[in-house]
């Protein structure tokens, strides 16, 4: 970001503000503009918006979406998408909470064993959904839309069935204290986990050959295959990773609300795809940067927070989010046209 904002202003000597805006838009996409507009609008609407305390809140509230969006990004990069992220999140929450509560009830002394096993089984339950998605997409050539839509229904049904629709209680206090409200060096635990995951994924995507292969498979599956890349395995990893990220977010969210819930995460598919698309991840696959997706998730968190402060009703917030998503896709198309006109 820093590097781009330095080079961009001195690049075009020709044209006025309009041309400069156009070039910035082509270079950075729609996100910086939306962020700027949102900042201005919400600071005007509420004086509490632009405070350090509130911005910290935004960060803390957006990490769950951010983690899910990182997984969603993997699916989009390979030219698919994952509609079952919400379900993976809910299922991990329910299974994790149930296992944790059960072990805690049997052995109240072994708090950390209960937490560890609970988290592990919760994440495993979520990953199972990714395994089915991945197998469907990679080995049976089913469209990602169908598999993940089907699995969203399956997972949601299982989560409801397991809990009977009732929230799961009885987890050790330490779980919520540590992963929900705890902090390390002044950084809230969920933020800490999200940062670790983002860094790990960054290294994986941009510093290892397999990371590059996700882009290659999304860019041109046939070319990737003829270049000696195992495209089936790559697609399989994609959906497993996507579900893994959703499941981790599920466990963190469980710690935050201190209950296992089958109904959390319903808005995650839309919000995570929106975060990615606003951040410039191409729906055609092969294009998108992790840093931008992190910003995209923060942006959505910022919008939600700003609308809360401005006392906009939650029903209307859904409307705004949908509109933003569509705007982002339109903006992406316009940008492609500009790119063509500038490059030709």
């Amino acid at each position, binding site marked *: 970001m820093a590097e781009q904002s330095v080079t961009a202003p001195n690049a075009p000597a020709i044209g006025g503000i309009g041309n400069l805006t156009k070039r910035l838009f082509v270079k950075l996409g729609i996100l910086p503009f939306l962020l700027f507009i949102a900042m201005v609008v919400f600071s005007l609407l509420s004086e509490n918006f632009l405070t350090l305390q509130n911005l910290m809140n935004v960060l803390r509230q957006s990490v769950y979406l951010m983690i899910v969006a990182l997984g969603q990004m993997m699916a989009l990069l390979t030219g698919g998408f994952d509609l079952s992220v919400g379900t993976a999140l809910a299922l991990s929450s329910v299974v994790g909470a149930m296992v944790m509560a059960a072990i805690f009830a049997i052995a109240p002394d072994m708090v950390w064993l209960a937490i560890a096993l609970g988290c592990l089984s919760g994440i495993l339950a979520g990953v199972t959904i990714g395994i089915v998605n991945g197998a469907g997409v990679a080995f049976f050539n089913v469209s990602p839309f169908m598999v993940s839509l089907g699995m969203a229904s399956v997972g949601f049904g299982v989560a409801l069935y397991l809990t009977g629709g009732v929230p799961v209680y009885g987890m050790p206090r330490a779980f919520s204290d540590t992963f929900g409200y705890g902090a390390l060096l002044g950084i809230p635990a969920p933020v800490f986990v999200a940062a670790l995951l983002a860094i790990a994924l960054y290294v994986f995507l*941009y*510093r*290892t*050959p397999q*990371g*590059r*292969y996700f*882009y*290659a498979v999304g*860019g*041109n599956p*046939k*070319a*990737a*295959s*003829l*270049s*000696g*890349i*195992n495209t089936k395995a790559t697609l399989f990893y994609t959906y497993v990773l996507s579900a893994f990220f959703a499941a981790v977010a599920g466990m963190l969210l469980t710690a935050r609300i201190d209950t296992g819930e089958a109904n959390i995460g319903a808005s995650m598919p839309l919000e995570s795809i929106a975060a990615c698309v606003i951040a410039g991840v*191409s729906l*055609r696959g*092969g*294009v998108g940067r992790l840093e931008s997706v992190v910003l995209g998730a923060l942006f959505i968190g910022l919008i939600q927070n700003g609308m809360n402060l401005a006392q906009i009703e939650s029903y209307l917030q859904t409307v705004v989010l949908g509109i933003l998503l569509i705007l982002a896709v339109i903006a992406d198309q316009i940008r492609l046209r500009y790119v063509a*006109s*500038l*490059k*030709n």
Partner: protein
Amino acid sequence: MLNSINKQQGREEAGVTPLPLLQTQAITKDYPGVRALDGVDFELLAGEVHVLFGENGAGKSTLISILAGANQPSSGQISYKGMPVTLASVHDARSLGISAVFQEFSLISQMTVEENLFLGAEPRRAGLLDRARISREAKETLDELGFALRPDQRVDQLTRAEQQMVEIAKAFRSELQVLILDEPTASLTTHETDQLFELIGGLKKRGVGVIYITHRMAEIRRIADRITVLRDGRYIETVEAADATEDDLVQLMTGRVVGAIFPELNLNAPGDVVLDARNVTTNDGLVVDASLTVRAGEIVGMAGLVGSGKSEMMQACFGALAIRSGTVTLNSQGITGHTPKRNIRDGFLYLPADRRHEGLMMMRSVRENVALASLDIEPFSKGIFINRGGEKRAVEALTTRLNLSPPLIERTVEHFSGGNQQKVMLARALTRNYDLIVFDEPTVGVDVGTRASIYEFIVELARGGVAIVIISSDLPEILHLTTRAYVFYQGRTQAELQADQLTEEKVLAHFFEKEAC
């Protein structure tokens, strides 16, 4: 009917001073930062085939897109039958009788032939589609053109050649005066090409002017009346096809004397057998009981019609197509049924014919595209991590060696010309020490200048001891570039020809041998 009357008048006048059917004067087209066309004068007479000739990026495509109304000139004048006209859209051009068949078809593949023919101009009765009239008129048009197509067949069930016919038939919906064809034979078989040329001959007789873009000398010789050469967006010269030699044209096009496009081979004696494929049959039946061997340091050609199995044979050896029976060995090790991944690691690379759909990630950078197949070895990676610096240096060295233009390795591949995209793909051959490299149609859609450097590149690899296979539909490539060739026919190795037998007649004889029997 109207059409032919117009034409007769045109020809009578033409007896004295032929009035151009279509003419451009000082056409210029500017894109931001680039001048694609610079004051181009061009004229097309009624009843002639006028070939546009030039390297990729010379401005041919821009010129025809302007003539077809798909693009507007920045300045300059277009005249049609002596009258200045503005072609604001494809629709405008069509209503004047100017139709273009571009390389990318404008057909809806899920619709039938007749639905496509009348798309956007459907005859109606009482506000509803007049289906009877559509199929009647579609049949008339197809019959008139002599196309053996069923009007009710879905377009996605047709071969590419048949789709091309539909596209041409579409051009006939309005009274055709000018037909623009952009490399129409790129994916046609010889037989289909003959059919197309027959049609063009018929059009000429009716006084239609044909603008034809091609890179193939043989086609120019067969159908061209005049040739206009463009270079770097500028008009160079218009010559009579009968007087122009191949060398003349190449010289006009490249602006320099190119003695021969093909380099001297001067190869060392072939070494050990590198690839040995025996009795290979594929699951899809496109290759049947085919056998071949390739030795180190030799260039083996694979000739045959499109669909003869020559390309499929090498894909099967490479592991991109499933093999039902037969064996493949590489350096005496069995590799039957191995994946492309494993073959690449064992030193066997296949570079596909269709760079856009099978070769390159168009929206990614040159660097990523070149390094793709070798990210698991040094200097591209170190341990489990990618070595960014090593990758950058290696790719820079390779692109410099191949004269990539512009030499920007972070630029996305889609912004390069066809020839330079091909160089990006070929650069993969140098990222590892391969023992065997298969080039599938290495010069399709590539201009002559780049072609020469690609040939030089391939021959250098062979001199270095690499076993090379060239799959080509371009006969001169087989004749001049290979030391031995196999001819494929209906999935079988029909013949193996040694260097002294590599003549046009001998190779062509085997293309159809079995049909003749």
